[in-house]
């Protein structure tokens, strides 16, 4: 370590940060690849079939084969499109999905940038993702892509409000924007995690997370039977793969945020012996895995919502519910039962 520090001189902080970033992004990209495999397997078993099982042992090389295949496919840039924006859009979609990981803590010490405004940063950076969707739809110069991007953008911003209110609930309970502090505020067993005092907000956050990532049953923007594939209908080859990666990276991000803010992060399930032996990182991964499994389960179970139903759920159900619970928690904090809520 000393030797390396001398070797790089004043650039050492940058090099060291870079190494840590690669240590986060590398496993994340592998997780994204294998989430696509897990999705096909899980949905397969839910439909009483096996799922991919030919490429490699039990199909474990399937995501790699998919990646290589997409790499060899032609990237078509439609003649009427705005070429620069068309190529820029997938990059603008994946960059925020990854950059949000800069402030995600994996344990009290294991965090790249422990910034005080962590949650605010995540809110800001994940909102940037919608630009990629709008630009992709508009730059394609195709009716389906345009309609898909409008639908998708309106849906994303609608659910972002309910999500924001749910996050305000977390802030009231934790009294901090710092993600490490938020998890520390939930120390103890399963009943001191925030999902219990903020139960309506937890449910709203979970469902809004599914809608936010355009996953089934909220996938009208990509509804293949109505508008073929929505905003990325004109994309092929690697340009399509980048959109695909961004969608799954966003899924993992939302699942991790749910685990950190409502499911106690790295805190063990119960605060006594056999549970406390398991390292905190493993607990966090188990919770993220559980939320991701819920995402896949929803997709295998529910029929697609109609667009007017989606908007009604977002504006007329989720926003009032979170608003009322926000005032309820705030009011309770003024009474002597306030300790129940944080």
């Amino acid at each position, binding site marked *: 370590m000393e030797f390396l520090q001398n070797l790089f001189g004043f650039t050492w902080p940058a090099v060291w940060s870079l190494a840590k970033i690669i240590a986060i992004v590398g496993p994340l990209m592998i997780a994204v690849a294998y989430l696509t495999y897990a999705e096909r397997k899980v949905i397969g078993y839910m439909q009483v079939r096996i799922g991919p099982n030919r490429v490699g042992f039990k199909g474990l090389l399937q995501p790699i084969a998919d990646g290589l295949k997409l790499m060899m496919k*032609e990237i*078509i840039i439609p003649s009427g499109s705005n070429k620069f924006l068309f190529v820029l859009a997938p*990059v603008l979609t994946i*960059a925020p999905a990854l950059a949000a990981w800069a402030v995600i803590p994996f344990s009290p010490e294991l965090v790249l940038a422990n910034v005080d405004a962590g949650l605010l940063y995540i809110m800001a950076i994940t909102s940037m993702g919608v630009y990629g969707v709008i630009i992709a739809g508009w730059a394609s110069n195709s009716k389906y892509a345009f309609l898909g991007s409008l639908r998708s953008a*309106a849906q994303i911003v609608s659910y972002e409000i309910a999500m924001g209110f749910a996050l305000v609930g977390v802030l009231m309970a934790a009294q901090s924007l710092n993600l490490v502090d938020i998890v520390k505020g939930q120390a103890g067993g399963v009943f001191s995690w925030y999902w219990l005092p903020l139960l309506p907000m937890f449910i709203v956050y979970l469902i809004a997370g599914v809608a936010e990532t355009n996953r089934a049953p909220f996938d009208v923007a990509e509804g293949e039977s109505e508008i073929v594939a929505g905003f990325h209908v004109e994309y092929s080859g690697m340009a399509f793969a980048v959109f695909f990666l961004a969608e799954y990276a966003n899924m993992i991000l939302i699942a991790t945020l749910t685990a950190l803010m409502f499911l106690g992060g790295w805190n063990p399930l119960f605060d006594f012996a056999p549970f406390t032996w398991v390292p905190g990182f493993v607990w966090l991964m188990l919770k993220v895995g559980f939320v991701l499994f819920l995402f896949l389960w929803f997709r295998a179970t529910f029929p697609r919502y109609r667009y007017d139903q989606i908007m009604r759920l977002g504006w007329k159900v989720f926003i009032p519910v979170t608003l009322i619970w926000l005032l309820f928690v705030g009011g309770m904090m003024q009474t002597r039962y306030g300790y129940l809520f944080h």
Partner: protein
Amino acid sequence: MLENYFPVLLFVLIGLAVGVGPMVLGWLLAPNHPDSEKLSPYECGFEAFEDARMKFDVRYYLVAILFILFDLEIAFLFPWAIVLEEIGMFGFLAMALFLGILVVGFVYEWMKGALEWE
């Protein structure tokens, strides 16, 4: 404090690189034989009737405006939520008043039918 944000900046750059890298790789490895039919917009096999930059429903515009209003509201709620313990009952009632005014606006737009999609 501010130096904490340097890794964040670096991370944004890596995020962009993860987007650009595969695209360049795909462009290098994949075949590239464009022709006019292949590059025409996909409309389920039909020729495009009209320009894709068409008129669209005003509701999308309404949703965008409502989003700006509510996002601003959330921006006001963030600092309030963090210090709620210190500002106590008075702070809570002040925010309740603010939310009350916004709820009047929300009820108005609801009754006006701005949230209807049929």
